[in-house]
């Protein structure tokens, strides 16, 4: 996920929350009230004075912008990060002991999304992650990952790309591409060769394509040592190896029906064919899917398949012609759903294997031993049939093989040699869902054993169970979240409701209601008193920064994942999962939006259905059935009861809404449309870009975007009035090598401003955002003229009512302006471009409660996997160019313009974290004006608290309560000592006089 799609597709329609304008009374032709009004032309109208106060505040706030970085002791306290891999694949997950890390083994996996990762089994934190989906082929499977004990590197292969990584730190050992071929199978070569270099093992890879090719790749360089081409046109199936031979297994389609399994033995040194065996399997095997197992790198590599009626299991020791038939003893009376073979992958382990049978409601297993001399397969013992599912994992210690079984209730370990149970632990927390597959590591100490097992749940979560105890859970299903939204619990809503009741009653009634409410609140008094000493103590002694849960920093985020689930993460508890529920009936879904109301969250998939969930419990409250396919969802807020409507591919709303409201949609064919809520047939306006251009993105101002000051106070106390239109839409359209940005009025569709950038690489991400009276965008620019600079650029534009301070242009003293009635005044735009070191793939803006705190432009940097918050003062387009700021400008806080903007380390909200694949950034205000919550998702999940002007309303950790107490105590002690002295002295003085 290191390189996101070059063009960020535009999915959600800009939802314009027009109730902030609050003037929808003039219904047919809505006019828009300015958010603040300048009523007279007096020298100091009250607004100006208030504004100056605010300006002073803003200036104060902007005085400290350089110090916004996170403190090292706040890491993991104010921020959290789910570093995800995706759901682990069963055949590429294993415990491995990297040679240099003494005793501790690590958990390695290749996920379904082709991410290789090493996990610390102790706490589930990833040590390193690498995206290996660098194949040029578009549709390749998840790939394969192979490793071997005592070797310092692991080998992965996806599509045509084979790479080897250092097991300990995830750095590249070698990589190799095989163009026009795709990988079928991969094995490490375990040769019983005393001269072999132990640090690396050669790889045997089987490629398909025009012909099957077996290649031996050097373990140090990845170069091809030899290759064996199979020109017979058979389906290449697998490779396997013993200590002396490499086996190439292909499937030969029979003349009439069925498939024959052909085993070709190759010399591991030269790659020449030594012999060939064809097995008579055509009556049972119809294709690659009917072969249950091909054992690789075991002392006795096996091929196992079953007959069509699943009565007989056929086993062949690779290399021989003999096929043993084993009866399947099915006493359950049910049809066998799956047969899975588990065998150790170590060369020196005992040649034992386990067959796991699963029916609809029960599961059992049988263990077989292979006699290496006679190649006979005998049944050793069977594991009892239990109701429900069970999963098995194989692990080995030296030659001993252990089988770990996890059922719904317990975890058991048996040795492959005998059926005696070595360890049995009941599961402390019974799993809510069934496990799909597991890996285990068994440590034997004399008679007793200890086991830890990493199991993948049906939900995609990954759990480590150590001796029955649940150690950690990684919510891998969260990877690639589709939509997320902040939610509010309805407890606050309760109080708001109560207050509303009081407001509407008579004075006496309200008073009685209030007294009753307070008396009722006394219920909590004993509890509160009980908590009090603990609270005081912890606030003084503990390492906690401060408990700010009461200030709205603990919010729930509702996340919809690809596998049809909805998760609730608590931003106050380091992003811990509060609940997760399976919502969609299908395997996957495509969620377009999550709309929240206090207490409830509604998820809208693209099929037009909707599911409403309770935010605190995760219970499904309401479900509506699927209708038509929708492209996005629009919200029309009307006095706090938002109504939502689906938008189809043509950009038209599915049905008219009653009541006033406006919204803007975009259509599949690249147009932007403006609609009145009451009419879903004809749009009010339609916008299409210039011919040859394609709309890639449209953004509107955030729904919560308060403006603290209607103007910008300059150094000489004059004011530049901001162009504050609540209905702005910024549309990005790309041509061949240019990008055009259109600023539209959402109500009338009027074009307010347009700008075109030439020499733009349109395959690179073009991010844009708009807030308050400014908008920003970034792109990769190439030199059009040889004298131009090449690199990524960030452009910021500010909108003002007129270029002259203390002048409002055509608006004059008008308190309101209308988008439709009068001539819409055009903004005066001041722009500045900065060269930035790396691309920005997504932008956002911090939102605070009152908008007094300066804003940060949140940017996701996909090339370094970081999230930065650039303080707005650095992006001021009025920074003086080619000269030092004058005294007035310096007073305003302007610094000299420099074309190159290097990202300061202090701006990195993600600091050293490797946050990959972010495609969306949400921000939310808290009750604290200084603090804004930031939540980023897309692949990883990252959340933090941003304080763009420092935490000016919180006593931080730097404020030592202990020191304060010590000072008070010291003063008290001083008074106690000095008081008698002074008294004595005064008495003496009287005697002396």
């Amino acid at each position, binding site marked *: 996920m290191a390189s996101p799609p070059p063009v960020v597709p535009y999915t959600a329609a800009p939802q314009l929350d027009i109730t902030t304008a609050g003037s929808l009374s003039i219904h047919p032709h809505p006019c828009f009230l300015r958010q603040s009004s300048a009523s007279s032309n007096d020298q100091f109208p009250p607004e100006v004075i208030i504004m100056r106060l605010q300006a002073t505040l803003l200036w104060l706030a902007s005085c400290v912008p350089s*110090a916004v970085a996170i403190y090292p002791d706040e890491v993991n306290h104010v921020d959290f990060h789910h570093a995800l891999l995706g759901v682990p694949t069963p055949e590429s997950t294993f415990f491995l002991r990297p040679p240099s890390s003494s005793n501790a083994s690590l958990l390695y996996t290749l996920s379904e999304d082709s991410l290789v990762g090493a996990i610390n089994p102790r706490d589930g934190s990833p040590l390193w992650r690498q995206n290996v989906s660098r194949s040029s082929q578009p549709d390749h499977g998840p790939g394969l990952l192979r490793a071997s004990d005592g070797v310092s590197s692991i080998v992965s292969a996806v599509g045509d790309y084979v790479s080897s990584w250092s097991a300990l730190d995830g750095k590249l050992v070698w990589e190799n591409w095989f163009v026009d071929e795709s990988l079928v199978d991969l094995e490490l070569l375990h040769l019983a060769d005393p001269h072999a270099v132990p640090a690396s093992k050669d790889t045997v890879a089987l490629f398909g394509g025009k012909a099957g090719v077996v290649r031996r790749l050097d373990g140090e360089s990845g170069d091809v040592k030899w290759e064996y081409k199979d020109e017979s046109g058979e389906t290449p199936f697998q490779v396997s190896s013993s200590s002396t031979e490499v086996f190439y297994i292909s499937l030969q389609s029979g003349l009439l029906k069925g498939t024959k399994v052909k085993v070709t033995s190759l010399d591991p040194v030269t790659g020449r064919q030594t012999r060939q065996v064809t097995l008579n399997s055509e009556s049972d095997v119809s294709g690659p899917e009917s072969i249950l197992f091909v054992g690789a790198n075991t002392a006795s590599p096996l091929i196992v398949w079953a007959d069509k009626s699943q009565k007989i299991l056929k086993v062949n020791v690779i290399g021989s012609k003999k096929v043993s038939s084993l009866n399947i003893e099915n006493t359950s009376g049910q049809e066998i759903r799956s047969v899975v073979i588990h065998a150790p992958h170590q060369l020196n382990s005992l040649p034992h294997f386990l067959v796991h049978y699963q029916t609809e409601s029960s599961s059992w297993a049988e263990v077989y031993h292979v006699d290496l001399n006679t190649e006979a397969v005998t049944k050793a013992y069977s594991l009892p049939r239990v109701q429900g599912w069970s999963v098995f994992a194989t692990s080995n210690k030296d030659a001993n093989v252990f089988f770990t079984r996890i059922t719904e209730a317990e975890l058991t370990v048996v040795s492959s040699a005998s059926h005696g149970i070595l360890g049995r632990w009941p599961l402390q927390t019974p799993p809510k869902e069934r496990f799909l597959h597991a890996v285990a590591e068994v440590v034997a100490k004399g008679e007793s054993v200890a086991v830890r097992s990493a199991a993948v749940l049906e939900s995609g979560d990954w759990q480590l169970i150590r001796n029955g105890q649940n150690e950690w859970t990684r919510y891998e299903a969260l990877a690639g979240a589709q939509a997320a939204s902040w939610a509010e619990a309805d407890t606050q809503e309760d109080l708001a409701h109560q207050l509303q009741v009081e407001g509407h009653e008579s004075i006496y009634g309200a008073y009685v209601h209030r007294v009753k409410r307070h008396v009722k609140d006394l219920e909590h008094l004993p509890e509160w008193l009980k908590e009090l000493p603990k609270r005081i103590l912890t606030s003084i002694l503990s390492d906690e920064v401060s408990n700010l849960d009461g200030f709205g920093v603990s919010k729930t985020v509702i996340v919809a994942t690809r596998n049809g689930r909805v998760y609730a993460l608590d931003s106050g508890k380091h992003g811990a999962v509060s609940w997760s529920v399976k919502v969609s009936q299908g395997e996957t879904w495509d969620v377009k939006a999550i709309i929240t109301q206090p207490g409830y969250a509604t998820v809208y998939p693209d099929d037009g259905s909707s599911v409403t969930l309770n935010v605190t419990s995760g219970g499904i409250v309401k479900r509506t059935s699927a209708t038509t396919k929708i492209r996005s969802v629009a919200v029309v807020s009307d006095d706090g009861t938002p109504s939502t409507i689906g938008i189809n591919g043509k950009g038209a709303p599915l049905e008219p809404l009653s009541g006033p409201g406006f919204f803007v949609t975009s259509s599949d064919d690249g147009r932007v449309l403006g609609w009145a809520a009451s009419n879903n047939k004809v749009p009010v306006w339609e916008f299409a870009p210039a011919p040859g251009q394609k709309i890639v993105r449209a953004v509107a101002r955030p729904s919560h975007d308060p403006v603290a000051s209607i103007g910008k106070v300059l150094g000489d106390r004059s004011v530049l009035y901001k162009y504050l239109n609540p209905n702005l839409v910024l549309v990005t359209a790309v041509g061949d090598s240019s990008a055009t940005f259109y600023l539209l009025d959402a109500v009338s569709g009027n074009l307010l401003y347009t700008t075109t950038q030439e020499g733009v690489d349109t395959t690179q991400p073009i991010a844009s955002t708009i807030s308050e009276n400014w908008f920003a965008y970034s792109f990769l620019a190439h030199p059009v003229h040889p004298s131009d*600079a090449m690199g990524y650029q960030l452009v910021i534009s500010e909108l003002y009512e007129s270029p002259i301070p203390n002048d409002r242009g055509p608006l004059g003293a008008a308190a309101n302006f209308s988008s439709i009635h009068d001539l819409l005044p055009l903004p005066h735009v001041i722009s500045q471009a900065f060269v930035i070191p790396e691309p920005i793939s997504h932008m956002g803006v911090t939102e605070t409660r009152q908008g007094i705190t300066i804003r940060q432009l949140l940017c996701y940097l996909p090339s370094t996997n970081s999230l930065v918050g650039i303080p707005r003062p650095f992006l001021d387009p009025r920074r003086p160019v080619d000269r030092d700021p004058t005294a007035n400008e310096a007073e305003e806080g302007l610094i000299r313009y420099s074309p*190159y903007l290097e*990202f300061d380390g202090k701006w*990195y909200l993600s600091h050293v974290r490797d946050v990959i694949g972010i495609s969306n950034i949400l921000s939310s205000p808290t009750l604290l004006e200084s603090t804004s919550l930031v939540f980023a998702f897309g692949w990883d999940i990252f959340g933090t608290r941003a304080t763009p002007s420092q935490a000016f309303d919180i006593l931080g950790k730097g404020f030592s309560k202990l020191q304060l107490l010590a000072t008070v105590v010291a003063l008290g002690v001083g008074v106690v000592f000095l008081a008698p002295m002074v008294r004595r002295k005064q008495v003496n003085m009287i005697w002396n006089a």
Partner: protein
Amino acid sequence: MALPNPLRFLLLFILTTTTLATSILTVTIPPSNPLPNPNSLPAGTHATLTSLPSSSHPEGSSGQQHKSKAPLSRSGSFTFHALPKSSSPTSYLLDIRSAEYIFAPYRVDLSADGTVLGIWETFRGNPWDNRGAEKFLADVSAPGSGRDVTVEAKVLSRRGFYEERSTFSPLALFKNPMILLALVALGFTFGMPKLMENMDPEMRAEFEKQSRASPVSGAARGAIGGGGGPANFDLAGWMAGTGNRPAAAAPATEVDSARGGATGRESGGATRRR
């Protein structure tokens, strides 16, 4: 064109090898001041080569064509295998992507067959033609010189992500003016009697007489010793400098005392000495 046969074969051989062979660019990271141990770089560090998708590139595959990526290898270097070929010489921007360390960007010029023509430092926000220090230049006379190129990356600086938290130190306490004032006052309280004892008797007598004249001590004495004790102490009057004072002071003293109670004693002395 009558070339001798062996030479013709040689030419043919060179031509075929140039079309077949792919060029390799390796970027190594030497230890430097900001980054003393290049092995400490995280595994996510990588290098990218970016260029303009020129019109010569086939449409559609441009995303793959004009941006290539090399992950950090175990030896602490980045290797671009098979440098991209194009129909005309192209120049590329070579970046090393690391969140914590800032590397200098390089300009890499490649010929049409993918061999390196030259590598220079470049400066962000400057014209593309403004090349900095030369890192590599292909030898025109030797045709294979740009095929396997190794350059050293340059670490410019390290980003500091964290804010330093000021730690509590007793020394910092003494920088506080309030603490200093309190300490001076304490010094006077304890030091003055000692000083008085060491004074010669004559001077002491004079000092005592004088301090008795001082309004503060006088008032205090008046307050404690006078008639009804603290009960009939006229605070307002004392603060205004009027009321029943046991000893009348010179007007100059009064002015001084009004100026500041703390210096009353010393200023009283000054008036007297004048």
